[in-house]
Each structure stands twice: as structure tokens, then as C-alpha cells.
């Protein structure tokens, strides 16, 4: 079946829904999602969305931009960061106008709390003075992402946006540098649906499921990024993957930074507040990459706490916050601790470990969410991307907490606006070849596979090798081993078969295609990590422990190699406006 739309948005998380809200009624718009919209991963974001509203104390967007640049370890493009931080105030107010039920200050404004890496200078007249934590994260208890996602979905209902839920995207139709549409499978029937469109936006989310311990939903398999890569477009900065310091031990379920923003403290087995040694000024509120490294260093140096299964964890101490504050401001995450670990946070410490959380890299775009085809910035016509799957790059080497919920609404909207502008002179460009052909081959291939390999086993091995050899600390030897392993797994995938051969809700089939996507992305992560011989942000090389601004103030672009060849890598310089790179101390 072929559908025709002016605008097609793939992904119904915050970025996709915000873009959809932006499309006026005179254009037809459809949103495709592999899950019902409110199941999207945006809903799991907890702590807040940041904007220098200055509702609780003095603040300015310039401070926010400075923090984001510094947090990115100077890899973020400063022009894009300025756009985001300047637009943040309007974006959050707009969310309130749309209906997000925010927590409030005593005078009825949106309440704000502290968050890692968000600071302001002690002396407002001296930008170089010591920087102290600032209340910049706007929140709704610890369910900020949940209420944002639901509010955006509700606004789409109000605007009568057309949804195709439980449709799985299998192909991106790109001919002569023009994006013409996408191909999907209706999961309920396995029927192929082609969507012919004038503009397409990918808001397909991240790929944390590449790693064994992750905060990401099962749907976080990077399908959009993999399709872009397979279509011959590059991916940017894939080596930068954020590990959130506080995942529940063994499970990886996120314990929001809000827990530390409200005063929670990390302690090692001696009860020591070890972050005082790593970040003397902001302590537990240092950016995530630094806290994750500190936790792993404590464990490696024998100061972790030995768990029942022989693995180590660190304690997150919330007890001193008192039951009232915990129940009012952190109900959801303390609920997780109770349910999943049987720990009562008002009386005991919560065992935590770093968890794979967020892809800073992804589909390269400019500041208007237009996808770019190369390191020179050549625009792919009619193709847009926003949210975690995109790399603008505002997060650079390391994203600050609360900047992701901001990113999705700022760039989702900008992408929406740019699509509308493009539509004024856009046509449906005819397909040159049968767009469904590749998907038919894909389906036949997966359904008729006869090998003995098992999808779940290959996925497990991929997740383990990525965690063990391409995680928080990396080195040449282990990255080399990881690459060999990933390529071996790709070979083995060709010999894997699935048990479910049916057409109705074939979850086996979905998992197989998702694994194929993740194996491609895992390879790009390992290759990109191996070429970057420096440590910056979330990318820590034990064999190159220093940041190298002379050689590496640049973004990595990786293209899919032809069979048997090495990946093609090129670089794009970081855009610097006013913030000179300096040592990153907190």
C-alpha cells in the first residue's frame, strides 16, 4: 500500500511530537511509530528540562550556554548551543502553555532545581569566578519526561495529527540526494506500507540497547540511525556515548540526577563522599562523564561495595533528605529502588552503578534539523532529524542532564518550521525504483533464514562486548578485540534463524531486524572510538588520557564501507563562537 503525505515524521517521542504540532492544518502530516506514542522513551526522563527562567535565583542563558559548552568538553558546536540555550526559556514557557503540569514555586511560577554541571559564576561581574550550582532544571516531581510526552501527545490529538502506531520503519528512500519517503511494516499484519512524502523527519531516538547495562527501553535500538547509515549517509560522533552514573545496580534502571540535585550523596565502601576528591567545587553534581569515571575508579581501586553476585556497586545516600522531601520530590525513583532492589531509600543507601544512557552522536544535522550529507554541510533535500538520534551537535562529548528534554522541543520545533518552509516549493518526487523491493527482500530473508545461530544470543554477546571493551574506559587493545567480535557477530547474524514465521505481530522478526541495526551501530561506535586517540567527554582512552585540542577539536563522520573495506572517516571542525577551550574542572 502506498500513502501520500506532505510531512512524515518517524518516531513519536518528544522531538517527533513537537515537530508534528508545528505543522499547520493545510499540510497533511503523519507520525509513524513502532510503539503507541506515549510508550516512547521520552517518558522515562525524570529530573527536568532546563532553561534559565531565573524563577528561583538569578540566571542567564549565557551561563547555560557556557555550562553546555564546558559540559560537552568543548566538542559541542557553539552556534547551535547558543541557539538552544537562548530558545530554552521560550520553549519551556511554551510547554507550560501547552499544559505540562509543572511543580511550582511559592509565587506560582515553574519550580526549578539544581542539576549536574549547571552553574553560574559566584560573582556575576566576573564570568571567570568560581562557579556554583544553580537551580535551572524545571520539573514536575520526578516525572518531567512523562508529563511532557503525554502533554505533547495530547496536543497532537487536539491538532488531529494522524498516527500510524506499531508501524516499523524498514527503509529510507533517498534518490539523488532527495528524501522521497520511507517504507514500513504494519506490525499487526506484516503488510508493507510505503509512505511517499515531500519531507521526512527522523526522530527515532537512541540506541542504548547496544550495551548490556542500560537505562534505555527495549525499543532503543537505533533503527533510524542505522537506516541513515545504510542509505550511504554518514553518522557523526558515534564514539561519544554517555554512561549515567546512577543506574540501579545490575539493572541499569535510571535513578535521576535529581536525586543528587536534591542533595543525595555518593559514598564508597568506607562511607566516604568520594566526589569531593574528583570535583571539589560541585562534588556530586559534577557532569555525568566525570561522575561515572569516578565511580568506576573507586570500584577499580577496591573501594566499591561487594554485591551478592560478586559484582561491585557504589551507594547513593538519600537518607538525610528525610521522608517528606523524598516522597514529594523523588517518588518515582525511590519507588524503583523499593520495587526492584527491595531497598527503602529513607532508611538505606541505594546501590547504583553507571548505566549506558544517551547517544551524543547520531545523524548529523544543522541547527534547523536539516540532515547533512557530509563534513562540508551539504543538505539532503527534504530530510530532517531531531532528538537523540540527531547530532546537531549541542551535546558534544558529554550531554548535561536536562539538556535532552530541551533539545527535543527546541530542535523538534525548528525542524517542523523548516519543513513548512520547504513545503512551499516542494513536490512529491517520483520513485525511480520500486521502493518496497528492499523491504520485501529483507522480510523474505529474515523469515526464511535457516541457520542455527540464535538472535538473542548474538544480541547478548554484542551487549557484553560493548559494555566490557567499549564502555566508560577504552584502550586500543580492547577496542581492537571489540571490533573483531562485532564483525564475527555480524557474520553469525547471517546464519541466525527465527522461530516465528507468521505475519501477525511477529516480535521475533522485529527483534531480528533491530539486532541487525544495532550491529551496524556497534561497529560505528567501536571504529569511531578507535580512531579518536584522545580523551574527551564520555570518550575516555586509557592509552590517551589527555584531551588533545590541537588535533581533535573536530567531529568524527563515519560512512558505511563497501564490502570488505575499512569504514570511511572524515572530520568536521567544531564551531567556536565565544567560548575558548579551557581545562574542565568542577
Amino acid at each position, binding site marked *: 500500500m502506498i500513502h501520500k503525505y506532505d510531512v512524515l515524521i518517524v518516531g513519536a517521542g518528544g522531538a517527533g511530537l513537537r515537530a508534528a504540532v508545528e505543522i499547520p492544518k493545510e499540510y497533511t502530516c503523519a507520525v509513524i511509530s513502532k510503539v503507541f506514542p*506515549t510508550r516512547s522513551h521520552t517518558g522515562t526522563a525524570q529530573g527536568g528540562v532546563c532553561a534559565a527562567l531565573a524563577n528561583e535565583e538569578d540566571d542567564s542563558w549565557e551561563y547555560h550556554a557556557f555550562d553546555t559548552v564546558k559540559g560537552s568538553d568543548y566538542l559541542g558546536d557553539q552556534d547551535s548551543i547558543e541557539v538552544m540555550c537562548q530558545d530554552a526559556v521560550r520553549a519551556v514557557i511554551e510547554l507550560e502553555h501547552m499544559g505540562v503540569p509543572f511543580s511550582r514555586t511559592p509565587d506560582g511560577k515553574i519550580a526549578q532545581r539544581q542539576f549536574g554541571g549547571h552553574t553560574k559564576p559566584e560573582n556575576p561581574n566576573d564570568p571567570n569566578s568560581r562557579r556554583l550550582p544553580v537551580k535551572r532544571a524545571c520539573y514536575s516531581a520526578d516525572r518531567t519526561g512523562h508529563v511532557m510526552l503525554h502533554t505533547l501527545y495530547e496536543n497532537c490529538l487536539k491538532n488531529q495529527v494522524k498516527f500510524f502506531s506499531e508501524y516499523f520503519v524498514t527503509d529510507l528512500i533517498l534518490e539523488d540526494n532527495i528524501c522521497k519517503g520511507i517504507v514500513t511494516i504494519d506490525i499487526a499484519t506484516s503488510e508493507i506500507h510505503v509512505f511517499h512524502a515531500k519531507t521526512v523527519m527522523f526522530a527515532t531516538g537512541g540506541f542504548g540497547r547496544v550495551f548490556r547495562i542500560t537505562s534505555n527501553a*527495549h525499543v532503543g535500538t537505533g533503527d533510524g540511525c542505522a537506516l541513515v547509515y545504510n542509505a550511504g549517509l554518514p553518522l557523526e560522533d558515534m564514539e561519544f556515548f554517555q554512561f549515567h552514573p546512577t543506574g540501579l545496580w545490575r539493572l541499569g534502571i535510571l535513578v535521576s540526577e535529581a536525586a543528587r540535585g536534591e542533595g543525595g550523596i555518593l559514598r564508597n565502601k568506607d562511607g566516604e563522599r568520594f566526589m569531593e576528591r574528583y570535583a571539589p567545587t560541585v562534588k556530586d553534581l559534577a557532569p555525568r562523564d566525570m561522575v561515572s569515571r569516578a565511580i568506576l575508579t573507586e570500584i577499580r581501586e577496591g573501594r566499591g561495595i561487594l554485591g551478592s553476585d560478586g559484582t561491585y556497586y557504589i551507594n547513593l545516600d538519600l537518607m538525610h533528605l528525610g521522608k517528606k522531601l523524598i516522597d514529594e520530590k523523588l517518588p518515582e525513583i525511590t519507588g524503583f529502588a523499593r520495587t526492584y532492589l527491595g531497598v527503602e531509600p529513607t532508611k538505606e543507601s541505594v546501590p547504583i552503578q553507571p548505566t549506558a544512557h544517551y547517544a551524543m552522536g547520531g545523524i548529523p544535522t544543522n541547527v534547523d534539523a536539516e540532515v547533512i550529507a557530509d563534513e562540508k554541510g551539504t543538505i539532503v533535500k527534504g530530510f530532517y532529524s531531531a532528538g537523540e538520534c540527531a547530532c546537531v551537535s549541542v551535546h558534544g562529548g558529554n550531554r548535561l542532564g536536562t539538556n535532552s528534554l530541551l533539545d527535543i522541543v527546541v530542535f523538534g520545533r525548528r525542524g517542523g518550521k523548516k519543513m513548512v518552509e520547504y513545503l512551499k516549493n516542494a513536490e512529491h518526487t517520483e520513485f525511480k525504483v520500486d521502493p518496497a523491493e528492499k523491504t520485501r527482500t529483507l522480510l523474505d530473508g529474515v523469515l526464511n533464514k535457516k541457520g542455527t545461530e540464535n538472535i538473542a544470543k548474538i544480541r547478548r554477546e554484542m551487549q557484553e562486548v560493548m559494555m566490557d571493551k567499549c564502555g566508560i574506559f577504552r584502550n586500543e587493545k580492547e577496542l581492537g578485540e571489540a571490533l573483531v567480535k562485532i564483525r564475527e557477530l555480524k557474520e553469525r547474524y547471517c546464519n541466525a534463524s527465527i522461530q516465528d514465521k507468521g505475519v501477525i505481530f*511477529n516480535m*521475533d522478526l522485529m527483534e531480528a531486524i533491530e539486532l541487525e541495526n544495532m550491529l551496524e551501530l556497534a561497529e560505528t561506535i567501536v571504529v569511531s572510538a578507535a580512531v579518536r586517540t584522545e580523551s574527551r567527554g564520555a570518550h575516555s582512552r586509557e592509552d590517551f588520557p589527555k584531551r588533545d585540542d590541537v588535533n581533535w577539536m573536530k567531529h568524527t563522520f563515519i560512512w558505511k564501507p563497501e564490502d570488505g573495506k575499512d569504514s570511511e572517516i572524515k572530520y568536521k571542525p567544531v564551531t567556536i563562537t565565544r567560548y575558548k577551550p579551557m581545562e574542565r574542572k568542577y
Partner: protein
Amino acid sequence: MQATFRVLRYNPEKDNKPHFEDYTLDVHPTMTVLDVLHQIKWNYDGTLSFRRSCAHGICGSDGIKINGKNALACSILLKVINLKKVVTIEPLPHFPIIKDLIVDMTDFYQKLETVKPYLIVNNPAPVEGERRQSNEDAEKLFESAKCILCACCTTSCPSTWSDENYLGPAALLKAYRFVFDTRDEASDERLDIIDTPDGAWRCHTIFNCNACCPKEINITWHISQLKKAVSTREL
């Protein structure tokens, strides 16, 4: 330790009607029911199908019936289940089964849309800044805004089972979310929608919804507030 799970299976391509299949596997008390389903799928029978996403009780995908009670598969740990007996796992009741544990939720989502689940304001927003709301008023919405649309409540409700037109607890809870939002200007419109025999009045305070809500929302109380608002509004 070992435990046996009796899982409802139905593949319309092969089966005339749903049937149960037993799976006995090694488990430990800290596993969730979702872990069990994944174990079955990944190690024994790849055809077993169910919805899931976040795996920690926020996305609302994996509402199912465990030993007769609606719950999220990812939020029930085996340690709270008596594993000495066979554990029965079924799809949510009342909705048509698409396959195995996957049900057709179209009716649920449509009813949600009936109550106009979005902020309606006729007066323009302030040119600068947010609409003011006291924290006390905001917090009145929080419990209802916790809803994850998992449908555990609606499908557990005998009024739903007996009246196919009943809006159901989830849609009514959504109505509350906006009726009691001090920023909203369409409370009256929404109260008209729920002031019907198939609306709030079909709630007979059976409390099944409360008993199974994975987010521990006191849904019946919220519906009672709607009834009160309907009864006391100006004629």
C-alpha cells in the same frame, strides 16, 4: 529454584481458540514477570509475543493478567508471587486478543479521546512567562497525571465488562486531569461528556481499578470528585 508458568497462547494464524501452555524454568526471586517472558521467548519459544518497552513501569506497554490480577509484567517481581503453585499469565481481560498477550486497545484509546484530553484555553496565554498556578493546585493534578495508559484499571472493571459504552476509569481519570486544572477553561464541556449513564455514573465504586493500578493511583477517588463536580455545578 524452578517455577512453572501457564501462559495463554493464541496465534490466529494457527489456533481456533486460545489455549494455555506451561513453561517450567529456573528463576530467582528478583526476576520480574517480564524477565520470565523474555526467558521463555529467548530460550524456549521464539513465537511468544507480548508488548514491552521501558521495562520499569513508565511506558505502560506490558499490562497483563498475572494470577488473575492485572499488573505490569515489568513491575511484578517473582518474590511477591507464590511460586509453589503454577503461575497463570494471561492478556488483559475484555479486549480482543490479537496474539498471545497482545490485545487490541483501539477502543481504550478512542474513549480517552472522547473526554478531550488536552488543555483547552480560550484566553490567550500571557505574552511573557507562564500561566501562574499555585503548587497546591499543581499537586492536585499530579496523581492523575501519573497515569501511564496501561489499561490495567479499565480492563479490570466489571462496569467495563458489562457496558461496552462505559468510558472506563482511565478515560475518567484523564477527564479529572483537565477538569481540575486551574488553567483549563473547558471543564463544563468535559463535565457534560461524563455526566451520562455511560460516563462517571457507571462507576459503581467497585475499586478493582485502585486495587490493580501499577502507579497506585486512587482512581475511584478521582472519579468521585468528578461526580461531585457534576452534582454541584451551577444549573
